């Protein structure tokens, strides 16, 4: 019997330099990609800051979350969304984000949650 892998939605609401939650989310996403588990990412609240293009933490310190995001397609992870309302409240637009991140409005977010077997907030 072949088991269809369950789909996973990872939600991150933490800013990239606020502890390790954003990095942990991306590590989890990469692990899912490596093991062919269907995974989608949703960044909301302060988590949308993790999707900003041009992040450059001081050399030698924390890993670059923006670069990790950019490397996701290489691991088979392409579904990455940022909450449209959170972006708007923070004065951001999709043009400010790492390539491949799409804005999700309330309806899209509700659809994402209902459409995945497992939802994990990290």
């Amino acid at each position: 019997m072949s088991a269809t892998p369950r789909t996973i939605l990872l939600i991150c609401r933490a800013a990239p330099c606020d502890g390790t939650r954003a990095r942990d989310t991306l590590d989890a996403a990469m692990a899912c990609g490596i093991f062919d588990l269907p995974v989608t990412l949703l960044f909301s609240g302060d988590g949308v800051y993790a999707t900003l293009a041009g992040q450059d933490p001081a050399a030698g310190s924390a890993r670059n979350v923006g670069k990790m995001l950019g490397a996701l397609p290489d691991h088979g992870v392409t579904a990455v969304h940022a909450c449209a309302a959170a972006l708007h409240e923070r004065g951001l637009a999709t043009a400010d984000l790492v390539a491949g991140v799409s804005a999700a409005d309330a309806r899209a977010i509700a659809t994402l949650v209902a459409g995945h077997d497992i939802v994990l907030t990290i």
Partner: protein
Amino acid sequence: MTLHILSRAHSAADCTADCARALADGDAVLLLGDGTYAAIAGSAAIALLHAGGQRITLHAHAGDCAARGLAGRLDACVQAIDDAAFVALAVAHPRSVSWF
């Protein structure tokens, strides 16, 4: 059907807003721990959760409410539940999302 869990107090209003955006008809919202403060009648959180018009049910952990002096202060739309009902709620929903 999704069970949404709110466990933080009012100052974490963004969690409530994000939860409200993700609601679909048939979903349940469970208030736990400091999240039970949202169950107080007339709270902005309850209005926010209903603002989208989705058909949802609201529940609050009775023990956590009692610990915080909220018994008798709950909004009429919130159902206080004990541990057994808490388990039943989780079992009845194929997925749960914790907003924090």
